[in-house]
């Protein structure tokens, strides 16, 4: 935020303006990312099952998701007769708003995150546990037994993935000594190459974090809340048109942003894997080089995120859905102890390797 403080505006103009611009950047970025991710997923699922995927609309199906979005906009909006109208309308917003808010906390490059905070990583994960409220309300308010069962399952599952995800974050916090996402990234640049990234001392933590965050995104193999073969559509059974689109949007936005978070805390965020940035080698003056480096940092973060996103889609294409009790057992009896074990390993590393 300091970077922009050189402006001549007084504070009462400047601060709202800053957040307005931040909001617009995040909203536009998010819309494009989601449209792209849905298309990517459908294309990749086609690839994994030896099909071609959408290829009729636009160049090789590039506009498929745009068509879907416009259609959902125009679709009739049904509110069931017995539904609680206020909660029914509110719950998509409750799911969507926190996920949109957390986009502000990711440091996309060395100087720009919409909101810096000393407890950034904690706020990030805490805000991401809010959507469960929206899911619960959606289930209760839509007067449908499938919705209710789906949202209750979502709650049962929330308890079991929230713990491992926070404990895995703890390992990173121990290594870096800070909850600030900028500090976590700069703590990984010590070795000046990819061996400084926290995925190496805390590999187990990365694995538990990855598995729990797949559950957090409500994706296969942990998509019980919307299991189609069991409960029609889960908590969003009764939703149509734009309200359903908001659930859809939230799912993909959370997928991208959780992957970006994972890349930030375990894979060095916006750091280049070779320590030096490509732009450093160009014979240019600092005045041009600095913005170039910022663009390059953005590029590295997006690249790492996309690798993780493809991994998540790959997981979806490979694994079948677990049974609910098996999955709860899996989280409580395997992932949680593993993530606690990881804390010990990380502590030992920190103790004997000293200040990394």
């Amino acid at each position, binding site marked *: 935020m300091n970077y922009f403080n050189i402006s001549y505006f007084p504070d009462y103009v400047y601060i709202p303006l800053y957040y307005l611009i931040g909001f617009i950047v995040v909203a536009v970025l998010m819309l494009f990312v989601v449209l792209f991710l849905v298309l990517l997923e459908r294309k990749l699922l086609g690839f994994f099952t030896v*099909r071609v995927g959408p290829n009729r609309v636009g160049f090789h*199906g590039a506009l498929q998701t745009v068509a879907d979005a*416009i259609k959902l906009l125009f*679709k009739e909006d049904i509110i069931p007769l017995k539904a609680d109208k206020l909660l029914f309308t509110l719950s998509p917003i409750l799911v969507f708003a926190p996920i949109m808010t957390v986009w502000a906390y990711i440091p996309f490059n060395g100087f720009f995150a919409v909101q810096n905070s000393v407890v950034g990583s904690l706020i990030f994960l805490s805000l991401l546990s809010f959507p469960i409220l929206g899911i619960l309300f959606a289930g209760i308010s839509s007067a449908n037994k499938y919705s209710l069962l789906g949202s209750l399952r979502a709650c049962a599952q929330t308890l079991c993935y929230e713990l491992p995800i926070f404990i895995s974050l703890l390992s990173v916090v121990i290594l870096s000594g800070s909850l600030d996402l900028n500090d976590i990234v700069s703590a990984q640049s010590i070795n000046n190459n990819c061996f400084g990234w926290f995925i190496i001392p805390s590999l187990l933590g990365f694995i538990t974090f990855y598995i729990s965050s797949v559950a957090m995104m409500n994706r296969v193999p942990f998509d019980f809340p919307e299991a189609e073969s069991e409960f029609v559509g889960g908590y969003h*059974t009764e939703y149509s048109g734009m309200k*359903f689109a908001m659930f859809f949007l939230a799912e993909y936005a959370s997928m991208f942003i959780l992957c970006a978070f994972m890349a930030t805390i375990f894979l060095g965020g916006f750091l280049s894997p070779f320590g030096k940035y490509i732009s450093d080698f160009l014979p240019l003056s600092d005045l041009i080089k600095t913005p170039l480096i910022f663009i390059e940092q953005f590029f590295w973060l997006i690249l790492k995120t996309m690798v993780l996103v493809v991994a998540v889609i790959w997981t979806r294409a490979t694994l079948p859905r677990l049974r609910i009790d098996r999955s709860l057992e899996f989280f409580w009896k395997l992932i949680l102890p593993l993530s606690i074990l990881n804390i010990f390993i990380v502590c030992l590393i920190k103790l004997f390797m000293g200040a990394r």
Partner: protein
Amino acid sequence: MQVIAGAINTVYNWARSNSLWPLTFATSCCGIEMMSVSSANYDIARFGSEVFRGSPRQADLLIVAGTITQKMAPALLKLYEQMAEPKYVIAMGACACSGGMFRENSYSVVRGVDKIIPVDVYLPMCPPTPESLLEAIINLQKKIRTQDIFDRDDEIKAHKSRLKFDIDQKDLLICIDDDKYFEIEVG
């Protein structure tokens, strides 16, 4: 005014014709052919229709794949009523079009789903090959592209006048064949 309406129509028709999400609904043998359409050899995903929705609220296209018995008829009507506008129907297979091989001497089969719900595209054959289902979807897309966003109400009215029962009643009686009546509640 007309220019704006034309522009809206173009965009809207382009969008909804290219994203027909079918409902997961199959009642008998034709369903198997419908499933194979989403497999690697035929790949319905090319037309953007591989998103089979479980919930009728989110689906646009009802592919009636298979025989509709008189027990099933109320459920079919209910599903159709639960779908959100705009919605389309493909009657897949001879059974759904006209009763097929059950037309003559059956005591339990509805002779064509158009006695209950409006049908956009008829696809005869027993069973239709996956390619012909794809062709039906292409034909439906062509039909949608010629439609007008403001004409939908008239279409619904025309369909209602064709039916032999009043669809707007709370507890309604469906007359499927001349001598058989079924009761159904649409809520």
